[in-house]
């Protein structure tokens, strides 16, 4: 060890003293300057967070109580009960609506199969992942918590800490999976408008890639919905 090469290792760690930190200033709200929130990384568009129940642009609920989400859930954590709409004052377009809707977050594994299964895009995921409950029944979110508010944004629960723009990104995974692997359906809107946001943009898909390299994109790039 006479050559001192083990000192070089200290050199690596010493250099780090002068490099930028990769972590942000997150202290769980403690010890921060007044008014300065904890620093958080921007969330990925497709992040699977806690769910929201969407509404149409006219305010009607999207859920039709079909229980597909409950059927596909591998953790069996969704409980849905449908009921007939009151024809005078319907809750959702169509015959039925989700009368009871509960997700147990002690069981949910955030696989988002429910999002893929829902035929009406009623259930999608928000970017909120900070849960806090002190008893089991609080872990069960009901329609009260899940349904979006009148502005189309997820309801902010008292313990949830949001950053600007996060509450508007609520359907990334639904949009990413909606072409179901068929490239002709990429970059095309397949979903209904949402309260507060209207029609969300699709991801550009492979068209952007096809333009910048001369990759052989298979024929039939025109979309026929027939």
């Amino acid at each position: 060890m006479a050559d001192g090469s083990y000192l070089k290792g200290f050199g690596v760690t010493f250099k780090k003293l002068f490099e930028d930190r990769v972590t942000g200033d997150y202290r769980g709200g403690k010890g921060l300057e007044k008014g300065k929130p904890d620093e958080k990384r921007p969330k990925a568009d497709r992040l699977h967070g806690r769910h929201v129940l969407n509404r149409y642009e006219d305010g009607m609920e999207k859920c039709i109580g079909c229980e597909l989400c409950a059927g596909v859930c591998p953790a069996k954590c969704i409980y849905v009960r449908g009921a007939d709409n009151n024809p005078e004052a319907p809750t959702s377009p169509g015959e039925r609506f989700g009368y009871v809707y509960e997700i147990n977050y002690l069981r949910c594994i955030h696989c988002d199969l429910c999002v893929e299964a829902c035929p009406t895009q009623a259930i999608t995921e928000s970017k909120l992942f900070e849960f806090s409950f002190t008893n089991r029944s609080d872990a069960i979110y009901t329609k009260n918590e899940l349904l979006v508010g009148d502005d189309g944004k997820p309801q902010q629960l008292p313990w949830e800490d949001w950053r600007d723009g996060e509450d508007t990104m609520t359907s990334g995974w639904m949009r990413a999976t909606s072409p179901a692997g068929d490239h002709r359906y990429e970059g095309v809107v397949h979903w209904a408008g949402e309260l507060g946001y209207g029609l969300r943009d699709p991801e550009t898909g492979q068209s952007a890639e096809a333009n910048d390299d001369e990759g052989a994109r298979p024929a039939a790039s025109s979309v026929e919905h027939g």
Partner: protein
Amino acid sequence: MTITDETPETVDGAARVRQRGDDAAVLRLSEAQAAAIGTDATTPDDDERVLLNMGPSHPSTHGVLRLMLEMEGETVIRSKPVVGYLHTGMEKQAEQLTFLQGCTNVTRMDYASPFFTELAFSLATEKLLDIEVPERAVWIRMLMSELNRISSHLLFMATNGMDLGAVSMMIYGWREREEVLRFFEKVTGLRMNHNYIRPGGVAADLPDGWKGEIEALLELLPPRLEEYDVLMTGQPIWRERLQGVGTLNTDEALALSATGPILRSTGYAWDLRRDQPYLAYDEVDFDVIVGTYGDCYDRYAIRLNEIRESMRIVEQILDKMPLGDYRVQDKKVTPPPRIRIDQSMEALIHHFKIFTEGFKVPEGEAYACVESPRGELGIYMVSDGSSTPYRMHVRGPSFINVQTMPHLMRESLIADAVAIISSVDPIMGEVDR
């Protein structure tokens, strides 16, 4: 495994690892026998051997591995890994879940390399279904696998450093791994346990701007790996802790069914990516890294260089990524595009059927294996023609590699036992599953 002409003779190794009695490496002692030792006054411990329990909650046993060590002074004589503390019955659980839901379950086994279990599950299911996945799906799967190999080996760098006292290495390893996981999050929505590779393809296409992300990653990693070299590879302290520690030869490794870096460290070049190419591994160039001495240092160096090889593969994937569909367009397996649900009654019915009862898989048996960062990860699947597996068995590399531990530890110091556990790199979620 196919036996070729070069397959070395395993008879010697087999005889050695099968040895029993006081001189063997494996301690064959039940809990009751262990508890009785020392309580019986008529049998004084005259051989000065001490039984020592390490784990299940010991920071360097990587999760909940427990080792029963028979010590003579500071030397480990015989040892016995005790597993099962994390057993959750995942293989049984698989029988309750449809083939569509199955990936959410298997991805939780080896949580450091979730894409590989998803991949093996999907390949086995696809064999039974007799379908061919579109090319883009194949290449996306390869891309995600190789990135996952990088992240998993980075995690090894971190824990191996930590176990040997290089605590800053732990932080660096996690830091780099996080960069890879951030890309996973953009693609799959989750950092771990993705449920992304599914029977029939992948769940979603790569997100906009994925190429740039990967290029940035490929630029970021090489200088960091060079730092690891300075911090560890070339370090006299590091070398002294690892070189010649926990050795195994090829005979023994083969007799113990060890795969992955453990087998390769003994100088035997066995890599399923090259020897039984799956996906499109025969279309990319890469080297299989082998060691010479079969010691902890070789295993460390193999993993470090495999990160570099994986980066080489990822670079080639970037150039060759084809365009097109990324899920098999078979109405019975893949749900229809969302818009079709509103347009066609038939599509709506398929959608409902796939998401409620799943798709049916023809009767039969299939075994599919992939080269995970820890070795051969195989899934053996039996279907009775329904939409859930009749039986699923996992050949987990961590589980099988754990049995090399007593042989690696034999006659080594207790301090080296930590280095050895670390260099086997077991993921207890997969060992116990």
